[in-house]
């Protein structure tokens, strides 16, 4: 009963068809779990508990096993994506050139901790070990746009401006991620 209840809200979702089709394509083989999770995350943007429960049920994998895999790999996220995402590079070069100070300033100003979501869930602040744009250090990526040679004050200002506008994620003309 419990499982039925958990999967029910999703069965009508057209995005779920993509996931179901992906599972059928691999004949529901449990060893295809990672591929299925890739598809599921692409479709939904993140892996919700309901989604994981459904995948576990269809592939016949214990739920804790699915959860263990979903949390092991960096690519998978269990949190819905927030409206704005800011990633500060803390690779060696950025670290030396003040990436840490950018991060600290943002944490302080917006009351959000690195790796977490703040401002009523509207801002995600993350770090990356190296974005491969060392010549621009320190680098901040705000909503997929790269800002190089950034200062703490500048980063706070840019993030603040982004938060002022209640952007419609789908409507905003977003450029592709550069580098990385």
């Amino acid at each position, binding site marked *: 009963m419990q499982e039925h209840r958990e999967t029910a809200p999703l069965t009508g979702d057209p995005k779920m068809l993509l996931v179901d089709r992906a599972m059928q394509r691999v004949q529901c083989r449990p060893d295809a779990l990672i591929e299925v999770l890739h598809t599921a995350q692409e479709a939904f943007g993140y892996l919700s508990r309901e989604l994981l429960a459904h995948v576990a049920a269809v592939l016949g994998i*214990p739920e*804790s096993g699915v959860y263990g895999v979903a949390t092991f790999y960096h690519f998978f996220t269990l949190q819905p994506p927030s409206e704005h995402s800011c990633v500060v590079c803390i690779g060696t070069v950025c670290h030396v050139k003040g990436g840490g100070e950018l991060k600290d300033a943002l944490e302080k100003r917006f009351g959000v901790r690195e790796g977490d979501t703040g401002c009523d869930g509207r801002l995600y602040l993350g770090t990356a070990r190296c974005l491969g744009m060392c010549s621009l250090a320190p680098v901040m990526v705000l909503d997929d746009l790269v800002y190089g040679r950034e200062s703490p004050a500048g980063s706070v200002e840019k993030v603040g401006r982004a938060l002022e506008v209640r952007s419609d994620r789908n409507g905003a003309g977003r450029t592709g991620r550069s580098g990385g």
Partner: protein
Amino acid sequence: MSVVTLTMNGRLISARQGESLLQAAREHGIEIPTLCHLDGLEPLGGCRLCLVEVRGSPRPLPACLTQASEGLVVETDTAALVEYRRMIVELLLAERAHTCSVCVRNGRCELQAMAARLGVDHVRFEYRYRLLPLDASHERFTLDHNRCILCRRCVRVCDAVEGAHTWDVCFRGINGRVVSDLDRPWGESTSCTGCGKCVHLCPTGALSRTVDVGDEAARERASLLRILERRAGIREEGA
């Protein structure tokens, strides 16, 4: 079943082909320390306390996963091994909150006993001091992540003996922890049968009975260990 002869700590000992060095040693009164291994569970090789030196091997090998074979020359207690084991236990004590004086398992804890056995009278590393959650949602059992050493006995016994696979490990590295189902509170787990096998096998105070039932628990644990013993026998014959 064929029998092999090997040398352990300078002594010639016999062992059954295919049995682990850990078992062979134990049968000859040589105790090799371990915190993750239990006969009857799939060997994991995770705690690294049972590492032994085997002639010809460039680095120490886990006795729980190394099969006895003819002519092996094994040392189980060299100065280097003793020091490595000490450091491993110190790392474990520093990793989470193992404050023995306020632990339900004080006096009956395998980690506590291992520390004493290996001569750990203080921890040379800095304690980590990171508070982890405590799950008291189950009506009879409690899970305290602060006491967990990630030996995975619970994961293995739940999967292989009970067949429920309620437990697994989530996240990774220093952030790893055991998890029930999709990280639901244990009490709301849909797969847990409430058999308590995980609790019986937990070496520390991570998994405990919320209410101590004394003799009954001891009887249950003894019966579980007998099941595992038989399982170990079957595994070995199959090997």
